[in-house]
């Protein structure tokens, strides 16, 4: 009985020794953070912002 209990406890205790293999390796000069995604393309955004510039930042 004690032998089985020991095996169960050993299995449970070893299961905590998990090593995460999903490691991000650093590469010099390469950004590996979260990707910045947008709903619009850069061209669409550029056109909208150019229009906005004309509305709010023209000379007085």
């Amino acid at each position: 009985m004690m032998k089985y209990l020991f095996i169960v406890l050993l299995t449970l205790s070893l299961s905590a020794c998990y090593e995460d293999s999903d490691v991000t390796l650093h590469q010099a000069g390469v950004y590996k953070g979260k990707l910045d995604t947008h709903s619009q393309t850069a061209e669409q955004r550029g056109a909208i912002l150019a229009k906005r510039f004309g509305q709010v930042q023209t000379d007085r």
Partner: protein
Amino acid sequence: MAKMKFLCDEERCIECNACVTACKNEHEVPWGVNRRRVVTLDDGQPGEKSISVACMHCTDAPCQAVCPVDCFYTTEDGVVLHDKDMCIGCGYCFYACPFGAPQYPQEGAFGSRGKMDKCTFCAGGPEEDHSHEEIEKYGRNRLAEGKLPLCAEMCSTKSLLAGDGDVVSELFRNRVVRRQGRQEAWGWDTAYNVK
């Protein structure tokens, strides 16, 4: 493709600090961190000049070059942003930046700097647009709303300009031509007898 740039016209800046206040309010920037500030040269002397300074979103950004964990990236709009989850608060970017743009909240034990914070050109960060995480870490994402940075939009004298570099330079070039070497504030020479 648009490349976003700031430009501060020193002939027009009146050192009102409204850009600083607007930035802090818009992004709820914590105490001790200033993403933007107004610098005055020859303060109190005739001909003093003021300029509003923040991250200039360099095309070849030195902060990006020196970061040991490469947490910086440049968006398609030419805005230099960083991932705060990767930042280790080493301070190298602060030493590299010629504008003193990177700021540190100095939170945590033993005077640790904390995650670096800087002007985002009101473009948020790498989190999902308008998400709670983005607002919490980087502030509002006005670019995704089709708006330009608030500091420039609300500048009363239109000294601070923000937008596509080509459009901004075109506007500034027209101003310089119109001035013809004179100060833009007509009548100051007469009023103060400045020679």
